C-alpha cells in the first residue's frame, strides 16, 4: 500500500542545513573523496606521525586508524587520512604511487589509495536502502541452499586466511632476504672503510704501482 506523506519535510530542511539523511550522506561522500587510505604502516606509526608526514602535501584534517580484527597479527596497519580537498588527496595518491614513500622505517614503502565508502565504520545509511532479514525454517525450500551458502562462506573465509598467511610468509621471506642483502652491503662498506682507514689500501696501491686513492 502506498504511503506517501510529508515529502515536503525533506524540501523544507534542505533549504536550511538541517542534517537530514540525504545531507548527511552527501557530506559523507564528500569526505570520502578527500580521504586517502594509507596501507602498510608500521605499528609504531601514530596519528601525529601521519599528520607530519602528510602535512608536506597539504593540510591534514583527520586521521583515523582502522583496527585490525582478523586473526593475523602481523598484518600491516592502515589508516584513513582526511585531507582538506579532494585535489590534495589525489595528488598524494599519484605521488605515492609513483615514488616509494616511507614512513617510520625503510625500505618498505607505504601504499596510498583513494578511500572508499565501505572503509568507514561510521558511515551513514544510504538513503532508500532497505535491508530485510528473516529466519528461514527447515521446511523452507531455500533452507538447504542457504545452509550450503553458509558453509561455502566459511570455506571462503578459511581460504582467505590461508592465502593471507601465505602472503605474510612471503613478506617475511623478502624481509629476511633484504636483511641479508643489507648486512652483506654493510659488511662490504665496512670492509672498504676499514681497509682505507688502517692503511692497507695505501700499501696495496703502492705494491701494485697504482696512484694513491686519496689523490
Amino acid at each position, binding site marked *: 500500500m502506498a504511503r506517501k506523506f*510529508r515529502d515536503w519535510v525533506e524540501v523544507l530542511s534542505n533549504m536550511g542545513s538541517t542534517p537530514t539523511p540525504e545531507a548527511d550522506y552527501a557530506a559523507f561522500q564528500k569526505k570520502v573523496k578527500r580521504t586517502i587510505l594509507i596501507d602498510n604502516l608500521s605499528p609504531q606509526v601514530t596519528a601525529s606521525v601521519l599528520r607530519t608526514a602528510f602535512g608536506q602535501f597539504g593540510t591534514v584534517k583527520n586521521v583515523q586508524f582502522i583496527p585490525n580484527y582478523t586473526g593475523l597479527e602481523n598484518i*600491516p596497519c*592502515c589508516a584513513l587520512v582526511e585531507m582538506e580537498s579532494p585535489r590534495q588527496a589525489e595528488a598524494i595518491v599519484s605521488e605515492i604511487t609513483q615514488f616509494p614513500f616511507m614512513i617510520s622505517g625503510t625500505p618498505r614503502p607505504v601504499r596510498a589509495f583513494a578511500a572508499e565508502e565501505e572503509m568507514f565504520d561510521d558511515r551513514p545509511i544510504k538513503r532508500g536502502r532497505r535491508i530485510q532479514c528473516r529466519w528461514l525454517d*527447515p521446511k523452507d525450500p531455500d533452507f538447504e541452499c542457504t545452509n550450503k551458502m553458509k558453509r561455502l*562462506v566459511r570455506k571462503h573465509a578459511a581460504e582467505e586466511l590461508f592465502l593471507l598467511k601465505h602472503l605474510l610468509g612471503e613478506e617475511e621471506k623478502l624481509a629476511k632476504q633484504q636483511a641479508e642483502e643489507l648486512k652483506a652491503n*654493510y659488511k662490504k*662498506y665496512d670492509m672498504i672503510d676499514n681497509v682505507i682507514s688502517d692503511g692497507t689500501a695505501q700499501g696495496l696501491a703502492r705494491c701494485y704501482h697504482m696512484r694513491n686513492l686519496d689523490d
Partner: protein
Amino acid sequence: MVEATKVESIEFKWGKKRGIGGKKKDVQFYESFCYDGVEYTLYDSVYMYKEGETEPYIGKLIKIWENAEKEKKVKVLWFFRPCEIFNYLGDEKTTENELFLASGDGVGNANVNDLEAIAGKCNVVCSSKDNRNPQPTDKELQEADFVFCRTFDVGNCRILDKIDEKIVGIEAKFLLNRVDNQNTSGVPKLDMNKKEVSENVVATDGTRSLARKEPSLGEKATSSSDVKFDEVTKINDRQVDNSGEMASSSSKAKRISDVKPSLVNQESSLGENSACNSGLGERTKDDKKETMPSDNITSRSKDDVGSSESKVDKVLFNQVLIEEKVKVAKDSGDLDDRPSKKAKLDDLTKASYDNKVKSVQKLRHDSKAVAQTTHAFEDKSKPKLTKDPHEINNGLSKEPKPDEKLARLANGMFPEASLRQPLKEGSKTNYQIQEVTRRPEALKVLASACFVVLDAKLLVKMRFNTYIFVIDMLTGQKQVPWEERMQTALEQGTVVLLQNLDPSYTSAVVEASGWQYCCCFLFPKKAVNLFGHLVINKLRIHMQREMKEAVSTSHCSQPNTLEYDMAMEWCLLQERSDQALRKLRQQQEQELRKLRATLKSK
C-alpha cells in the same frame, strides 16, 4: 447508516456522515470512523506511521472522506517535533514533549494521506494560555504524550507564539483542547451505548483475524488465558475474592486475571448476576469460537469493557473516566514509545499492538470503576478490591514490559520471539520479513569495521550477499556503553562475527536489525611487527649520510639508492599478493553466485 468494510482484515467502520462533496457529488465526508477497534473523530490527534521512519509523525485529522474509487482518505494537519524544525528554532527553548502545530501558507502544513496510515491515537494537549483554549488541568498536562502552545509558520519558517484564527481553513477552536476534553484521551467515547459495545466485539473479531495471520502466536498466552478463564468462572460461582489464589497464576496473566475477579465481584455486589452471567456466557461462546486462543486477552478484555460499561452507572463511569483517562493515555504513550524506538514494528504489528494497548487501558478503567463503586457499597471484600486496582496501576505504569512482550510474542515480529521458536512453528511457511530501519541512538558496533579491514587490505570489493546468517544472542542491557558491552561479551564468550554481510550494511544497520543484544564485534589485534622495516643501528651514519639532517619521519626515496631498489622489490611483492587475492576473490564470488542462483526466493 453504518457500513463495514474490511481492509487487510483490519476492522474498519465508518461513523457519522457529514456531507457530500466533489464535482460529481461522489465524495462522502465523515465525522468519525472506527479503525482497528479504535474510534477516531474529526480533530483527533493521531500517530501516522511511515515506512522507513523510526518515529511516527503526529497530526490532527481535519478531514475524513471516501472518494469515488472507494479509497479512504484523511487530511492531516501536522504537528512538528522540535527536531524536525531544529533549524528554525534558534534560541527557542523547547520541552521534551513539545510539539509545534503547523500554520501559515505554504507547503507542508497539511496533506492528504491514506486512512490506513494511521497508527494510533495520540494524546496531544494544548497548553496555550489563549483564552479560546479550555485550560487543561495540571494532571492532564502531566499525563499528555505531547503538548503544544506554539505554531510553526511553514510559509515564513518561523515560530509563532500565537495561534491563528484559522489554520488551513479550520477554526482555531477545533484545534485547541476540546471543551469536553474528549479528544485528549485515546479512550472510547463516554456516551458509548450498547450498540457501540457490540461494535467493540466486532472490533475484536477484526483483531482476531489480524492476529491469526501471525504464525507464532505464543502458546504461553493460550495456557494462561485458559487458566484465567477457569478461575473467573469459579469466582463468579462462589462469589469469593480469591485474589490470593490469583497470585499463583502465571505472572503474565496475573494482572489481567486480577482485574477480572474484582470486576466479577463488583458486578455481583451490584446484584446483576444475570447480566454478568450473560456477559460470561458471551465470553465462553467467544472463546469457543476462537481457533487461536491467544487472542483471548484482547477479546475478553473488550467483552469486559462491554459488560462493565453497560452495567456500571453511567455517571459514575463518566466521573472516573475523566479522572483517569489522561493517565491511561499517558501509559499507553509509555507503551507506544517503546516500539517506535525499537523501530522494527511495521504498521501491521503496530495496529494490533495498539489494540492491545487499548485493551489494557480498558481493563484499567474497569478496575478503577470497581474501586470507586466498592467504596459506595461497603462490600466486605472492599479492602482487597480497592487495593487491587492500585496494584494493577502500578504494575501497568511501572512495568509495561510483560504485556509488550506478550504482544510481541503474539505478533511474532520480534526477533527474540522468532528466535525462541523459529523452528517449532515449522508447519507455517508464512514467514515474516523484517524491515530494518535506523535507530535513533546508533551505538557504535564494529561489524562493518571488521569488513573494512579486509576490504581495505585487499582492495577488492566485498562480495554481495543480502542475507544475514545465524548469530547467537547476548543478553545484556543496551544502555551500557559498547566498550563495556564488548568487554563483558568477551568475558562471557558471546562475541559473534557476522560473515558475509553486504558491505553496504553499516554498523548502525547491524545494530538496528534487531540483534541489539548481540555483539557483532571482534577484539582488535595489536600488530606487533611489520615485516620489511629494517634497522641497522651501527650503520646509520654510513648509510644515509645525506639523510643526517632530515628530521622528517617520512620521505620519498630516490631512484639511485639501494633503498629504492629494495622498495621496488616490496612493490613487486605487493602487486603479486594483490593479484593472488583478487584471483581468489573472483573465484569465490563465482562460486557464491552459482549457489545463489539456485535460491528459490529472490
